[in-house]
């Protein structure tokens, strides 16, 4: 029997980036806020101190900071004709765990979506027609929120993170050196770009010579010491090259720990409980109001935590799982197209081009997570798609994230994977090769969704989440087209002697790492017939339930999602503070 605890104003389920954002915003309003995190407390000096942070085996390959699948996993398949089987080993995406979530081991790529990404259906419909937008059984729809509404919140997150970069469009004026395709920004980035190491400098030169306007990727890796609006201090990056998949030992990467928690944890009206996993969102008998959550702690004790507001702020997969387990909303059925929870699960479609040099020492290990020269010419609708057979796009970048040798040794086409020839090629190429990435969108598709698995059960005896996902020809054509453009840049790089091009082909495979950019399943929209949440991330069905995260993306754009996830969280927080607390109830009339 669950023990009932005293009520709080707001309970947060999961304590990563969005939990920290919403927690800080609501605590500043004077609310009593409780965060429930199933993982452990983590912080720089104890968990990824500089004396042991640069450990490729432990963090990347032994998953020391990642979600432990022995304790929680999901099932996966490419289509409804397959039996979904458990994801037994992390690969394609590297789920986070504990306080700070996947934000601990991210690279710190802080992108905004394009204004047209937020209108993916209506924009493409107008430009290319219905047949193109509805091809491949795609179920693309517009975000309910506009660029103008999100812009101040993007700006806020960039300042919280000390984002480095160069504006390309400042209040409508195109700026030299920035991304000319970005939407109009209200302000410059708070910190200048990281200077290019050798690889990005070579990439930028080749791209610019081809007429592309390359620019430094916006990052949460500090180019100089920085104090953010909450008083948190970050240090200048030392280019140690252990950023993605690792915790930063140097306070140089924006995470919840380095930007928000020093402020939030000191608030008397904020409480964090760790090792507490929420099992269910509880509701009134009519189902229209959340009464709180039931959770179990690691000592095996069960509690009912009443709350006036319930915020799901775990990762997208856990948020959707919890909705399905709590019976909130109608689960999506791909056969009928009915139901919304789990609909439009999407991902990221990446490709790569390796470039080899004979006479250049690139020192790939001098890197930072998001230290990249980038070309945005082929992202979103920045180019004419007429006749190409796909919508969406990708940025092309050489991101010098580091040179960890188990993961990042590239060999020329035709080289065996082991043996003497491999060894000699590895020794020769390690300092003399780099990887150009294409980082592309995934449109929503009728057959891609999340639901509950009928066979496999989690540690609590509940159905696991089941992921049904594959790329469509829309993504494969996109990847072929843009990876070929990336290969042209690679070939044009000064001193390049060979390239190896790897566009995304075939079906989605869980084994090779791609990105931890899972999206959809709790999509946002302008009415309850096309979405789970409104533009303030408020559940249409349960008006005191707010669902943070990339689950709200109707489909995924060609950019890393965290900037948009954070902007949506700030946008939601502003609506809760300015509207909901004054008059609790639906913020958008159905």
């Amino acid at each position, binding site marked *: 029997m669950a023990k009932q*605890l005293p009520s709080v104003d707001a309970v947060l389920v999961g304590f990563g980036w969005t939990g920290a954002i919403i927690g800080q915003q609501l605590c500043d309003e004077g609310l009593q806020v409780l965060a429930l995190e199933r*993982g*452990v407390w983590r*912080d720089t000096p*104890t968990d990824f101190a500089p*004396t*042991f942070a*640069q450990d*490729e*085996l432990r963090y990347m390959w032994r*998953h020391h900071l990642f979600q*432990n*699948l*022995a*304790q929680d996993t999901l099932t*996966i*398949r*490419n289509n409804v004709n397959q*039996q979904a*089987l458990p*994801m*037994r*080993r992390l690969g394609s995406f590297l789920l986070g765990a*504990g306080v700070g979530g996947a934000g601990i081991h991210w690279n710190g790529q802080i992108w905004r979506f394009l204004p047209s990404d937020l209108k993916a259906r209506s924009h493409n419909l107008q430009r290319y027609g219905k047949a193109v937008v509805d091809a491949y059984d795609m179920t693309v729809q517009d975000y309910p929120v506009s660029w103008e509404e999100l812009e101040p919140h993007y700006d806020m997150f960039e300042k919280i993170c000390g984002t480095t970069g160069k504006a390309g469009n400042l209040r409508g004026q195109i700026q030299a050196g920035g991304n000319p395709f970005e939407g109009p920004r209200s302000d410059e980035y708070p910190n200048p770009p990281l200077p290019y190491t050798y690889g990005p400098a070579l990439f930028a030169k080749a791209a610019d010579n081809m007429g592309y306007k390359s620019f430094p990727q916006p990052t949460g890796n500090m180019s100089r010491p920085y104090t953010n609006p909450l008083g948190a201090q970050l240090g200048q990056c*030392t*280019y*140690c090259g252990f950023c993605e998949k690792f915790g930063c*030992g*140097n306070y140089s990467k924006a995470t919840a720990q380095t930007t928000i*928690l020093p402020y939030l*944890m*000191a608030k008397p009206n*904020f*409480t964090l*409980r*760790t*090792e*507490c996993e929420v099992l269910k969102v509880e509701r009134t008998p009519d189902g229209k109001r959340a009464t709180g959550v039931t959770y*179990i*702690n*690691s*000592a*095996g*004790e069960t509690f009912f935590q009443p709350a006036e507001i319930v915020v799901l702020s775990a990762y997208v997969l856990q948020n959707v799982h919890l909705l399905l387990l709590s019976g909130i909303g109608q689960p999506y059925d791909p056969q009928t197209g009915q139901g919304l929870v789990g609909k439009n699960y999407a991902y990221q479609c990446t490709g790569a081009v390796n470039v080899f040099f004979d006479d250049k*020492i690139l*020192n790939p*290990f*001098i890197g930072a997570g998001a230290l990249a020269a980038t070309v945005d010419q082929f992202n979103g609708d920045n180019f004419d798609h007429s006749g190409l057979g796909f919508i969406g796009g990708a940025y092309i970048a050489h991101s010098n994230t580091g*040179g960890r040798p*188990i993961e990042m040794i590239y060999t020329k086409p035709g080289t065996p994977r*082991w*043996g003497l020839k491999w*060894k*000699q090629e590895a*020794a020769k190429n*390690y*300092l003399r090769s780099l990887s150009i990435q294409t980082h592309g969108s995934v449109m929503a598709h009728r057959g891609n969704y999340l639901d509950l698995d009928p*066979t496999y059960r989690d540690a609590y005896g509940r159905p696991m989440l089941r992921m049904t996902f594959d790329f469509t020809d829309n993504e494969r054509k996109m990847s072929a087209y843009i990876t070929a453009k990336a290969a042209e840049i690679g070939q044009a790089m000064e001193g390049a002697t060979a390239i190896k091009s790897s566009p995304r082909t075939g079906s989605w495979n*869980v*084994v090779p790492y791609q990105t931890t950019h899972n999206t959809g399943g709790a999509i946002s929209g302008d009415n309850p017939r096309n979405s789970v949440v409104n533009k303030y991330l408020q559940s249409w069905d349960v008006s005191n339930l707010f669902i943070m995260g990339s689950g709200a993306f109707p489909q995924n754009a060609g950019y890393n999602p965290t900037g948009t996830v954070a902007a949506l969280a700030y946008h939601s927080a502003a609506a809760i503070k300015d509207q909901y607390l004054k008059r609790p109830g639906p913020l958008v009339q159905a």
Partner: protein
Amino acid sequence: MRKPFQGTLGPDVTHASSGPDDQSISRRRLLGGTLVGAVGAVGASAAAPLRDGQMGAPPREYNGAMPWREGAADAPFPAEPGGFRFFTPQELAFIEPAIDRLIPPDPTGPSASEANVHVFLDRQLAGLYGRGDHFYLGGPWPKGVPEQGYQSRLAPAQMYRQTIPAIERHVGGAYSGKAFKGLAPDQQDQLLKGLESGQLKLPDADGQAFFAMFLQNVLEGYFSDPLYGGNKDMAAWKMIGFPGAHYDYAEWALRHGERVPFPPVGIMGRPGWSAGG
């Protein structure tokens, strides 16, 4: 009792093995067992063991300040010196020649065995990784399609233990009673390629799944920090030009094309680094 090289807390390597069937039992034991804390208790005993994972630590409540505990650094455990802890002599008779076919000796750099990759494998398979920590191993276990990845019920230690004798049985049958180590290098390569491609089917083991794990583990042992028993003398890092766990390259970021002159350094330093040598 093993000690981490620094700090006082680290993964509890002594907990009971979780076989394929007893994940939930293990979990229940953990939840209802000895790691008891209480909601409402601020902080927790500094002696409470942290596990290498996210659950199973006592529940804690934090309020009013950034938590910090002295001596709580989650430092890694170095591989222990001494003899083999996992491999049997029969298994080593396969492992030592096999790893040197994957990374053979030549003047470029060390072979896998010269880099102590077999020692690395032994310590990994004797430890948490060998037991399938961070693997989900619950059933049922249909084979699935390649896109669904690892679908074995076996933890890595079980995978090695089951597959090596299966390979040796196949070799004995195909080469009139010989063992893998008695084959010519070309024959060893052919056999390994057969496992890699799946064309060589073992009647009682998944040779392809084993090979994928084996190759990955060998690369890990060759290139990981020497802390874990392989990459002896950081010779694999020297071979490719990787300076290792170096902390600060700020002065080198803009020196494009120059050779960084630092000798490699590991997490525990390097020979001659400290006063004690």
